């Protein structure tokens, strides 16, 4: 089972090594800690690039070459099993990229630096774990472990109302994941009954392929389809992470309260874990139920798109606005997933990546602004302007902001467009009405962003903005990879599409069997 390469192991544990190193550095040597963290994430990023280079895009499914497999708990047939395929690879690269940038962006953190960076790297490792696990149990462990650093990162380094946000985030996600836990254990026990599997297992790949289609379970004297019941369980678990309406209300709180880097990670990476869960677990294991519930997913996706956009429009807090825009954008991913066509699915995965970069830019930019202004009001509660004339005051910043903004609203030539177009193309035939309505979500998406931009950037410079300084070298430095990504992948998405299309195609053909 083991492949020839230990690369995944290395990537997964490299941040943990960083955690250890940071723990060993004395508290007072703050710069040492920062540089260690930075160095560590850069190495990790380099490793993921190596992974990308060595990746063979023609292989559908997991790449045997990279597989890592060690028995862990023999009694439950739980294994430490890692693998990578075309769906997880973009996510892994995105994760390592964003984390290294976020280290730079957190350079100014001054409250218990040691704890911050240690938790941050810990978070990175657990996120990698989620994207690499091939064992459901391992997946679940990482999925949950990730909450702990997140809880502290929001709760300690967050804004005024951080405690509430942290608790809410934690409880919400925990609620979803315990439902997933039930599904996971139930699957374990029915897996032995399946002749294709033959033994109790947590192996995601072994369970994939619609092997539980005919099972049913009795609840309150009713026969319910096993796969549908547990698909719903897992759906809730993943949907909370995405977040899908009506499970989205933790997100605005968490985003507003979290420090910049954490918002970036939250929106850029953690939300993707939800949709990744659909692609890796819910869809392959319960393809028939997925097809059955595709309509619901599509409608929920639509609600996400429109509802998120409408809510975003009403916000007077920039960060909250962007948080809601994430809700809206993840709705597109859900739409793409619901399409279950090649275009839609590829579009969804691409959108996961692209939203990762563009929304990260937005949050980073808001963070940069916040460092100068210490508030985020577009319009203060008393009706006065929070910002004005930033275009004049911060020219470089404004340019970057424009790029991020237009990438986020899906301007052709920037990254969001291709993925959204693919999603729409994928979903149009099956759900014409939904597509048309979702396109209006796109329209509203442009409206709230432009409106925000107009209110903050145009016009005369208001008095309090006159002291703001433009982006410094460090800030430009960490924005530039994202700018490049947004532009390059907007014009030429092939580097990402190439690695994922075969894997996605694999999944689509599986789903097509049940359609």
């Amino acid at each position, binding site marked *: 089972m083991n492949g020839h390469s230990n690369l995944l192991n290395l990537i997964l544990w490299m941040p943990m090594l960083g955690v250890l190193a940071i723990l060993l550095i004395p508290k007072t040597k703050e710069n040492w800690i920062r540089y260690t963290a930075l160095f560590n994430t850069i190495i990790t990023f380099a490793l993921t690039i190596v992974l990308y280079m060595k990746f063979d895009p023609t292989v559908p499914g997991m790449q045997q070459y990279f597989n890592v497999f060690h028995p*862990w*708990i*023999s*009694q*439950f047939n739980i294994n430490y099993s890692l693998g990578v395929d075309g769906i997880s690879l973009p996510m892994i690269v995105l994760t390592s990229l964003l984390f290294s940038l976020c280290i730079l962006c957190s350079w100014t953190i001054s409250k218990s630096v040691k704890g911050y960076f240690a938790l941050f790297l810990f978070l990175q490792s657990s996120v990698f774990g989620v994207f690499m696990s091939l064992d459901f149990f391992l997946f*679940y*462990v990482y999925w*949950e*472990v990730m*909450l*702990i650093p997140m*809880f*502290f990162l929001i*709760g*300690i380094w967050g804004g005024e109302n*951080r*405690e509430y946000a*942290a*608790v809410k985030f*934690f*409880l919400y996600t*925990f*609620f979803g994941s*315990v*439902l997933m*836990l*039930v599904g996971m*254990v*139930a699957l*374990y*026990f029915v897996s032995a009954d399946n002749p294709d599997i033959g033994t109790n297992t947590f192996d995601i790949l072994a369970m994939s392929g619609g092997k539980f289609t005919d099972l049913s*379970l*009795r*609840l*309150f004297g009713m026969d319910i389809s096993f796969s549908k*019941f547990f698909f719903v369980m897992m759906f809730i678990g993943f949907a909370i992470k995405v977040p899908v309406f009506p499970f989205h209300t933790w997100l605005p709180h968490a985003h507003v309260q979290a420090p910049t880097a954490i918002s970036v990670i939250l929106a850029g990476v953690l939300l993707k874990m939800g949709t990744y869960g659909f692609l890796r677990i819910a869809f392959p294991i319960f393809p028939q139920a997925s097809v059955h519930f595709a309509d619901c997913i599509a409608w929920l996706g639509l609600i996400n798109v429109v509802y998120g956009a409408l809510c975003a429009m009403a916000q007077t807090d920039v960060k909250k606005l962007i948080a809601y825009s994430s809700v809206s954008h993840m709705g597109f991913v859900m739409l793409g997933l619901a399409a279950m066509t090649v275009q839609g699915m590829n579009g969804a995965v691409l959108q996961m990546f692209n939203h990762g970069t563009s929304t990260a830019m937005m949050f980073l930019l808001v963070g940069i602004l916040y460092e100068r202004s210490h508030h985020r009001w577009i319009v203060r509660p008393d009706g006065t302007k929070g910002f004005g004339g930033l275009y004049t005051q911060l020219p470089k910043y404004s340019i970057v902001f424009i790029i991020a903004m237009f990438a986020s609203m899906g301007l052709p030539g920037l990254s969001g467009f291709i993925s959204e177009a693919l999603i729409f193309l994928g979903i149009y035939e099956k759900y014409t009405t939904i597509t048309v309505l979702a396109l209006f979500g796109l329209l509203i998406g442009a409206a709230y962003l432009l409106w925000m931009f107009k209110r903050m950037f145009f016009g005369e410079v208001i008095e309090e903005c006159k002291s703001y300084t433009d982006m410094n070298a460090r800030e430009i430095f960490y924005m530039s990879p994202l700018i490049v990504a947004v532009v390059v992948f907007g014009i030429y998405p092939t580097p990402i599409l190439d690695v994922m299309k075969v894997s996605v195609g694999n999944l689509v053909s599986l789903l097509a069997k049940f359609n």
Partner: protein
Amino acid sequence: MAINYLASISRYVPELLSVVIMVGLVLIESCYDNSERKKGFFYAATFIGLLFVFINLCVSLTEAPSAIFTNSMVIDPFSTLVKIIMVLGTMAAIYLSKESKDIYGSLKSEFAIMTIGVMIGGMILASANNLLMVYIGIETLSILSYALASFKKNEERSSEAGLKYSLYGGISSGVMLFGMSHIFGMLGSIQFPEIMAGLYELSTFETAVLIPSFIMFFAGIGYKIACVPFHMWAPDVYEGSPLPVTAFFSIVPKVAGMAVLLRVTMVFFGQEGALQVSWVGILSVVAALTMTVGNVSAIGQRSVKRMLAFSSISHAGMMMMGVVVVSEIGTRSILFYSITYLFMTLVAFFITSFVADKYGNDHFERFSGLIKRYPMMTIMMSIVMFSLAGMPPLSGFVAKFNILSALLSEKYYILALIAVLNSVVSLYYYMKIIRLMVFREVESMEPIVGFGALNQSIIMTMTVPVVMIGIFWSGIMHLTEGASIFLGK
């Protein structure tokens, strides 16, 4: 015959040793006057003695099961493991009492003696193989507990706790005994194996008549575990008792009760039939209720001790889920749960106790900003709280996972859902304390006396299993798998 008894005694060393320790401690207590020297000697004797018991139990863990004293007791790996847990719990509780200010200085030695007594009761319960032994065990456990509950003898609340405990104990042991007497009457024996054999020969009518008796029997055990609705005494007693006592109560009697419940269930209801259906039906309702009531009540608490007490009720409910499945896998999961629960609860109570000693109360606010003063302790407490809530990769999660897998292996989907949703609820109040410790500003920077280097290292040592069992639990699984219940045949 004599040889038989001798053989029996050779398997009975831990209990006997415990009795010897207990008696010896009484002697030490009475022979020496109150001096530091006595204190040192006393505790040395206690810990060394209990360590011997522990080692002895560990050694005998692998031995083949056997019934001793004319079948009145069984020594099987299951009971041995339960005893190990109880011994560890007792040792920790005694250590806590030694450090705690909640126990009057003059009574500290008595605490040790009594807890060892309770432990002996628990040991008897764990290996009880007939109704008499169950009764004796429960009473040994209870009567000493009454005294323990009213340990703060100058305080009204404490003595009220003891009073309530004893009265409630009285009625429930009476009811249990009444049930036992009818079981005995119908089946003609008090030996478990014979009862088991007799049960399968009963007619449907006779079975129906027996059911009330079993329910009465269950009431007695349920009272010991403090499962809903026989838990009414527990909050009052937990609150009124001194903190080390509460810590002790939430481990040893619970584990012992769970052991006997498990044994009774496995012995009497191991075979499918009308009896099993009704028994399991009751158990599942009780388990679900216990968990839910425990959790919901814990949310509203101001005092950490009370919160932990309520949470121990909900954990008991969780463990009962493992009984519901009536299978090896259930036994295994309960044992696993008990082991992890032991460490988690101990750490939590230790830290709470030291904080409470400092301030005179253990309200949540006392934990505010603990991370500024004692980062290590805060980390330990956080780990334990997350573990209690069932966050991976900590042992609490694995324990819950085991229970869950036991439930789902028998396809109890609804129970499983109730169980996991309860752990969400529990997360809320466990998180509350973490929130206070980590996110809030510190109240005062005064040092907490209890957190000396030794105590800190002990707490850390006890936290190590909480983490390690969560990650490398194959070994513990192996241990619990081996510790199956010997049905006495």
